[in-house]
């Protein structure tokens, strides 16, 4: 199997894994040809997942396509890297129709542009005017402190067990006494 893939696409880099997993790294321009070859010729008909990771230290986004072949029972991982400053990626809508949904999510959450994709603008977030939220430089706690409120603590903050004992008069059993705040 590895030999067949390498014969068709000599630039793809392979990493060795055991079990039923194959791993390849492909340059981003070769992705549509690679994927359609996998689907038509080599029997990887089922697209399981398109995942994305933000490597902010290396200034890149990584996109992983995970394919599954029902006859040979093999998983195939395809990694690509995109530049983080100007993220543009090819559209693979015509190969699998479901990729449209994954791409809409990537566009909204990470800001990756797909120039040929036909889709409505908003997917999950509505009226969002900050940076795309799944980037690692978006601080969600600071956003929450800015926009929403937190519940303040009680002024007469009492210990829960003592209050219950005083109110109902029941005894705390011995095994519970060793778990104290």
């Amino acid at each position, binding site marked *: 199997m590895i030999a067949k893939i390498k014969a068709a696409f000599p630039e793809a880099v392979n990493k060795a894994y055991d079990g*039923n997993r194959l791993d390849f790294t492909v340059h981003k321009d070769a992705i549509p040809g690679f994927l359609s070859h996998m689907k038509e010729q080599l029997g990887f008909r089922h697209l399981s*997942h398109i*995942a994305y990771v933000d490597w902010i230290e290396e200034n890149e986004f990584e996109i992983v396509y995970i394919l599954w072949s029902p006859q040979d*029972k093999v998983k195939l991982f395809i990694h690509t890297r995109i530049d983080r400053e100007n993220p543009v990626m090819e559209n693979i809508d015509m190969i699998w129709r*479901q990729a449209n949904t994954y791409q809409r999510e990537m566009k909204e959450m990470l800001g990756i542009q797909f120039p040929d994709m036909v889709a409505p603008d908003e997917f999950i977030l509505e009226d969002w005017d900050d940076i795309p939220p799944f980037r690692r430089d978006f601080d969600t706690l600071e956003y929450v402190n800015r926009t929403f409120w937190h519940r303040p603590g009680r002024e007469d903050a009492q210990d829960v067990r003592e209050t219950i004992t005083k109110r109902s008069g029941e005894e705390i059993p011995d095994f519970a006494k060793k778990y104290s705040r």
Partner: protein
Amino acid sequence: MREKATTIYLGPQHPGITGNMMVRLKVMGDTIVSAQTEVGYLHRAFEKLQERRNWLNSFTLMCRFCVPETDPMENLYARAVESLDNIEIPERAKYIRVMVLELARIATQLMWYAGQNGSLGLYTMGQWSIGDRDYILDLFEQLTGGRVYHMYQWPGGVRRDLPKGFKDKVLNTLDYLEKRLKDYDDLMFANSIFQKRTQGVGYVPKESIIEHGVVGPVLRGAGIRSDIRIDEPYEVYDKLDFEIPTQEGSDIWARALVRRAEVRQSIRIIRQVLDQMPKGEFNTKIPNPMKWRVPAGDTYVRAESGRGEVGYYAVSDGSIHPRRMHLRGAAYVHAITLLENILPGQNIADVSAIMNSLGTCAPEIER
């Protein structure tokens, strides 16, 4: 007089939709011309939150991904961390996990009975099946302490052993459920109204299956025998003996028959698990969870929930916090592209039945 298409919103507040989502329909008369799903009412940004928690805390977020069926998600988290850190779990833990997963599958299909029939107007089935599902939730409460969110399958095994006398209680519940399945058949499947309303409705053509990546009972209702439990066996499924039911027809009726057969197969699996359960440890020691650093790497684990394939892509970079945990819900492709494809041509009254039959669960789509 020329007709124009009207837009109606099968909106977030509706007694017939599964979860909090909206379908924007363009109709002419009673027939749908085009449809557009809109999700986002339940987006909690789980994956962003998991990056801020350490490996112990992000486990508590895991089960809340999909609310009707919470156990496959915990199983995925446990197996992902075990495969990143190369932990082996004892046999007894694997058997207990399979039993918990199959009980969760029966509970989900019982809830599906209520939803599907409620969308057609047969509310009696809802009263029966949710009442029977409560017996399974009682079993979960004895085993794990919670009815809906269990937090039981932890990397390294399970959290506590089976209580005394649990096996007899499970067998009693299974006997009771098998007797009730005959009642469900008489009321629901032998009912001519149910048959007339579901045969020929919601047809998924065979070309769409590869194009859209369809999984689960929708795939098996179209005649393709494919299930993660036999394709890529995890836990101890390769030692158990069960069948994968398929049907031809690919409409709501065929999928209902597939789900009905799955309940029977799940009962069969649980009986075998209880017979074959070995004695031994129920978890292996793992390092201190507050300071656990999982080695760097990435992995993709899959499980079969009641609605299809759920997958989990986990990346770790060797620190206390997970790097990226990306879940693929089973309904992610069913609810958006597939639904928009098969709705044109159907009636408005059938939209709810089709949504229930495809197994759309809104929290899974937008996490």
